[in-house]
C-alpha cells in the first residue's frame, strides 16, 4: 500500500466512522503509516527509553513495538476473569490514536529536536493527558507511554533492571532455577 501523506492520513482518520470494516481499514492504514514514517517513532524511543539500550537496542525495541501494533486484533477474546461469567474482548485498536499523536509530533518536527527538548514535549503531553502510570500497552493513552509499557513488560527490561539473566517467561533447565541468576556482562 502506498503511504499516505500526513494531511491525507489525518483527513482519512477524521472521516472514518466506527463501522467494523472501516475500523479494520483504519487500523491497517495506521499500521502502514507508522511503518512508512518510522523516524518520529524512533525519535520518541530515544527520548523515553533508557540510553543503556544503545541505538541498536532502542531501534530493536521500537521495531518490536511496531510489530505489536501491527499484530493487534480488535475484538479478540481476552483471558477470562476468575469468579465471574463476564467475557471481555480487546478494545478498539489504539493504532489510529497513536498514529495521530505521532503525526502531531511530526508536525512539531519532533525528530529534529535535541533529546532534552523532545522529553519536554512528551512531558507536557503526558501532563495534559494526566497520565500517572505506565500500565498496559493497549490502554496507554499516549504513544510514548505505550512504547514504555511495551518495553518494560519485556524479559529484556527485567534483565536490564536487575543486571542479571533472569530470563522471565523463557524456558530454562529446571535445575538451574535454584541458582542465583548470572550477572549480565556489561560492555
Amino acid at each position, binding site marked *: 500500500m502506498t503511504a499516505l501523506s500526513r494531511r491525507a492520513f489525518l483527513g482519512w482518520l477524521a472521516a472514518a466512522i466506527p463501522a467494523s470494516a472501516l475500523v479494520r481499514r483504519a487500523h491497517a492504514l495506521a499500521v502502514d503509516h507508522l511503518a512508512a514514517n518510522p523516524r518520529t517513532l524512533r525519535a520518541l524511543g530515544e527520548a523515553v527509553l*533508557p540510553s543503556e539500550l544503545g541505538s541498536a537496542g532502542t531501534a530493536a525495541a521500537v521495531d518490536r513495538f511496531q510489530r505489536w501494533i501491527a499484530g493487534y486484533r480488535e475484538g479478540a477474546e481476552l483471558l*477470562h476473569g*476468575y469468579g465471574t461469567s463476564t467475557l471481555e474482548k480487546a478494545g478498539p485498536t489504539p493504532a489510529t490514536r497513536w498514529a495521530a499523536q505521532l503525526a502531531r509530533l511530526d508536525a512539531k518536527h519532533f525528530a529534529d529536536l535535541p533529546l532534552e527538548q523532545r522529553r519536554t514535549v512528551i512531558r507536557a503531553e503526558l501532563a495534559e493527558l494526566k497520565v500517572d502510570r505506565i500500565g498496559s500497552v493497549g490502554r496507554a493513552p499516549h504513544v510514548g507511554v505505550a512504547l514504555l509499557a511495551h518495553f*518494560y513488560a519485556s524479559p529484556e527490561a527485567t534483565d536490564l533492571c536487575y543486571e542479571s539473566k533472569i530470563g522471565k517467561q523463557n524456558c530454562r533447565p*529446571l535445575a538451574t532455577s*535454584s541458582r542465583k541468576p548470572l550477572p549480565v556482562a556489561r560492555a
Partner: protein
Amino acid sequence: MRAEEQVPRSRSALRSGRHLIEADVCIIGSGISAAMVADRLARTTRMKIVVVEAGDEAPTLASRYALRDRYLQYGESPWPNDHLDGYEIDGPLQSRSMQVGGLAMHWGGVTPRWSPEDFKTKSLFGVGTDWPISYDDLDPFYQEAEELIGVAGEQGPAAMDPRSKPFPMAPLPLTYNLGLLKEWTSSAGITMWSQPSSKNSRPYDGRAECCRNDTCTPICPIGAKYSPDFTWQKLRATNRITLYPRTLVRRLVRDAVTQRITSAEAVQRGRGAGTPVTFRAKQFVVAAGYVWSAHLLLLSGVANRSGTVGKYLAGHRNQQAFIELPLKLYPGINGQHSLVTKQFMRTPPDARYLRHDLRVWESSYDRGPRLRDNASTIMLGDDILRDWRERTQTGVARVRAYYDVLPDRESALTLDTSRRNAWGDPLPRLAFKDAPESAALRSYSDDALKALFDRMARAGGGKVIRNEEDDGGFLDHPAGGCRMGSDTSSSVVDGWGRTHDHENLFVVGAPTCVSASCANATLTFCALALRSAVEIARG
C-alpha cells in the same frame, strides 16, 4: 469436522430417524474428574464408555506456544471459544470455561492433599459436618491420582502431611528466590516446603519436564503440566472411549417405577437448535463440576428427594499480604511456584476455630517500573530505569492463607428463570453464604491472619505493605451442590458418589464435597472421582 464430532446412529436409531447412542457408562462432562473416572474404568473393566461434553475440542499441544505468545503480548485468551455463548449468569461463577478437558485445561496444577482433619471437623472441633469417608479411605486414591496426573512433591513433616507412599516424582526444586524466602519463614518459626504440583520434575508419561517458563496458568505450552486432554487423547487413541464434544445434556430421564435413569437427552450444538441426541446407558456419571452437575439435576428433577441439590456450595476465603523484606530477590524465575505449610491445619484445643494453609511466593508487587517519582514528577529515559533499580534493592514476598469457611445450607445454586440458554433452559444463579459459625468467626479469622503476616514480616526485618482479602462474594476452589452423606435427608449422594435416589446415577468430584478445606482442591476432586469409579465398576 473430526470423526468423533459426528454423532453416529445405531441401527435402531437409523430405522427410527433418531440419534441414539448406547453404552454401559455415560459420563457427562469431560473435565479432570471425568477423566479420572474414564481412565480407571478403561483400565479395570471392559465397559463401553461414552463421554459427553458441551464445549468444543481444546487447542492441540502443538498450537500452544502461539496461543501463549498472543496471551503474553495482548492478554488474549489462550483457550479461545472455550465457552458457550449466552451463559452470563447471576453470581460468582468460577470460570466460563467449557471445553474438552474442562477448567483443568487452565488450572494452576497445584496439588496439595487435604488434611485428615478436613473430613471430621464436627468430631474434632464441634463445627461443620463430618464426611461419610475419612482421609484414610481416600489415601490410596490420592496416591492413584498423583500417579495418573504426575505430581512432583516434597514430603512435609509426617505429622502434618501424612501419606502412605512417596510422591511419584521428586519435588520441583526451589527457585533461588524461594530458597531465600524459606530461610525467612523458618526464622518466623514456620516450616515450609515445595508446593506439590502436577508439573513434571522429570519427563513423565510421555510429557516433557517443566522448564519454568512461568505461564502454568493460563497455559503450559510444553505439556509439562497435566491437563485432561492428555488422558482423553490416550483413551481415544486406544478406542477405549468415545467422546462427543459440542453436545449439551439437557435432561436426565428416570423410569417412574424403578427410579433408574434411562437416558440423557442432549443436543449436539450446530446450526439453529442443533441435533437432538439420546444417550442410553446402564449407568450415568455426572462429572460436570460444582455448577453444571447440580444444574443438570435440578433441570431434570432428579436426585433431589432431600431438597439439597444445589445446596451447601463450599469454598475457602483468602487473606493475603505483600511483605517488603531486606532481601535481594530476582522476580521472574518462576513466580507461580510457592512454598507451602500445613502447620495451621489444626485448631489448638483452647483456640477459636481457624484452620488455614499458608503459601509464600516471590513477588514484584510495588517493584515495577513507574512513570512518576515520589514527588509525582514524570520520569523518562534513564530516570525510569534508575528509579526501578533503586526500588528493587529490597524484595517483596506474597503470603496467602486460605481459611476454612463452613457452608450454609442456603449457600446455593438455584435455577434462574429470568435467564435462559439458547434452548430455553433456565441458567443457574449462584450465591455463596457462610454458615452461622463461620460468619461469626470472619473478623476473628481475618484479624488473626493479618497478625500472623505482621509477625512474619517482623521476623524478617520487613513490613507489610499491603493486605488484601476476598470481597466479591466468591469463595475459591468451589465445591458442593451435591454433597455426600450417610443421612439421605441432608445429602444427595453416598460416600461413593452414588445418588441416594437412583441406583444407577453417580455424581463425582467437586460437587460431592461436604466442605472445601483450606487448600487447593483439584487433587481431592480427582481422588474422590477415582474412588467413585471403583463403585461404578461394580456395575
